[in-house]
């Protein structure tokens, strides 16, 4: 898939380059130039763009409702509550962009494959009132990897410029679950064994697709920059923040994994936010002539 995308990108760049190699026409009369400029301006009010972009993302989760397998009887739940580590792990995404530009505004459809990762930790402790050296501590670290197909609708507004065109964007998206997995690693300290016994248990890795919601939706906003290379190609730098509005966890299957319940783990109701940074290329789809020549404002 990655190779195919790369090949497609190369072909588009070469095609655009070849179009630029067409020989220049001889100078035209001022009247013709004026007429041509009007036509060009009218033409430039509309454009379709096609492109690819990819980059890293960082995730943050919001806890809507907390769940726990372990029910404390003589201590506060806060002692074992999950601690989420936001923007800690790097995920990735790849986007195909189809944008319709009209008088400064762009309506963009950007189907995205997004791989998100997030982490939480919690710990348990047992101490003895009788023998103070009797003490056991377990530290759990749970990593989630979730793949979504994201179908967004975005409106962009080009703030200014020609060669460098910054823009702002807002939109809404729907995400469909593709795959998910979890890993649970456990480290512990046992002081009851006659000394300090630090141990690490074997990591539990398992598919967790059933534990996540099949769909969720959210809002998105961001900024970006297009840089016109002058040969019908735009380089794109895009920063996008996706804000999840609905639960990403399956409420029905929450306790379905005995492997996780057995070690005291169960997913909370969560929303998922992502900070995406992408770079890519955009190519125009409307051309003035059969030589794939399009316009850029001077």
């Amino acid at each position, binding site marked *: 898939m990655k190779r195919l995308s790369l090949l497609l990108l190369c072909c588009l760049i070469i095609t655009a380059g070849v179009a630029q190699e067409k020989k220049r026409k001889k100078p035209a009369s001022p009247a013709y130039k004026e007429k041509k400029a009007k036509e060009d301006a009218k033409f430039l009010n509309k454009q379709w763009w096609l492109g690819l972009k990819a980059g890293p993302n960082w995730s943050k989760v919001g806890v809507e409702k907390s769940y726990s397998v372990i029910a404390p009887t003589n201590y506060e739940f806060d002692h074992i509550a999950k601690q989420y580590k936001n923007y800690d792990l790097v995920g990735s995404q790849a986007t195909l962009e189809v944008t319709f530009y009209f008088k400064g505004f762009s309506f963009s459809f950007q189907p995205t494959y997004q791989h998100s990762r997030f982490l939480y930790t919690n710990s348990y402790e047992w101490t003895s009132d009788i*023998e103070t050296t*009797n003490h056991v501590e377990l530290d759990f670290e749970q990593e989630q990897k979730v793949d979504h197909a994201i179908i967004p609708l975005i409106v962009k507004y080009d703030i200014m410029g020609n060669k460098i065109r910054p823009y702002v964007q807002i939109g809404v998206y729907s995400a469909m679950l593709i795959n998910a997995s979890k890993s649970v690693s456990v480290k512990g300290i046992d002081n009851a064994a006659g000394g300090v016994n630090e141990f690490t248990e074997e990591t539990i890795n398992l598919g967790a697709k059933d534990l996540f919601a099949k769909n969720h939706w959210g809002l998105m906003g961001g900024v970006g920059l297009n840089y016109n290379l002058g040969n019908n190609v735009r380089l794109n730098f895009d920063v996008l923040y996706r804000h999840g509005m609905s639960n990403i966890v399956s409420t029905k299957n929450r306790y379905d994994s005995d492997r996780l319940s057995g070690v005291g783990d169960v997913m909370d109701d969560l929303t998922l936010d992502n900070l995406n940074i992408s770079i890519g290329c955009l190519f125009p789809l409307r051309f003035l002539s059969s030589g794939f020549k399009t316009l850029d404002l001077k």
Partner: protein
Amino acid sequence: MNKRILILITLLGGFMFSCTEESNPAFDTNNFTSIFDNSKFDASYFPIDIRQTPDGGYLVLGGRKLTNSNFTGIYLLKADKFGKFVTEIEVEESSVNPIAKFAAYQDKYYFFCMDAVTQEAQLVDVDADLSAVNITPVEGGLTYPAASSFEGDEFVLLSYNNGSKESVISLVSVSGALQISKGYSIGTGEDIEEPIINHFIRTGRQYPFEVGRVAGSSLYYFNGFYNYTFSLVFTNITSDDPIGVVQGQQDDGGFSAVTSLGGSKFATSRFNFGDNYLLPNKDLSTSGNTSSTDLGGYSLPEMVENAEVKILRASIDNKNVLIYGTDTKTKQIGLLFYDEAAGTFISSRYLGFSNPFEIASLTQTADGGLAVCGTTYLAGRFPRICIFKLSKDKLAENVN
């Protein structure tokens, strides 16, 4: 054109919002796993029986380790319908050794225990909120209560008389009054008594004592020691000799669980020198002397030696099934589903992973689901009470 775009956007928007995952309290009560943890290193809790309360919550009768006694302390726990901890009671150490079953009658919950000094039976009642514990001495000086059941409006109690060395079966009213009682000799000699005492002080094997009434009959049974063997004994509680005995192999063989299905039909399991056999629908002779070793049964090597077995008659998806709960060698709780009428195997389900899990009790819940209560060992060593709640839908998957 604009109309089409509007329709498309509306449809897309509808799709986005309609497919989202909403929190649903029903899901949270249908399925859950709860492990009730105490942070004390030396604390040790194990469940004995579980009952669902009218508010959808759960009452767990359990035992706890006592530092100053060889006997087991009484522990009661209340969880809400989501499996969350509500309250607990550690009953004073003057009353010890709680036993199954935890019986519901009117608006109270009853169980037997014994006086720590005299070893005489006591009847305990609590309400659904665990707001008070009332302990009433049982009349008649019955000692070492071993098992009980609730039949009609009275208790059937199996106890052990270490003076006369008899297994004693009695009928006791909810006020603790002794209605009728009969003792049957376990045999003579100290050797035969030793495993019984070790059972009560939990230094030896825990025997599957049971007692009850044959469904639709005036005949009673107990699963306990009689005439040097661990036997299933049928009696009318008046005759000096049992009406029928299904003998085991001293204390190496016998029944590990018994549930009367009516008449001579029983759902049972048996152990024999460590092996386990399940007999989901078996005709047992309720008169005369027979031997459990002749009964055959489904042998399940996945079960631990002399496994604890609990049998529940349940109605799932309009089918009458028997659910056998047991301990497996993989340290999980195994649930085996059998057709009640035919005695044929339907399916299985296993609960627990990583930490060891052991069965204590099963109960069908008001929503048609199943609550499984057991012991797990947090960090592989701290015995704690756990509840698995399985939904009606999940159980239906097991029987269809």
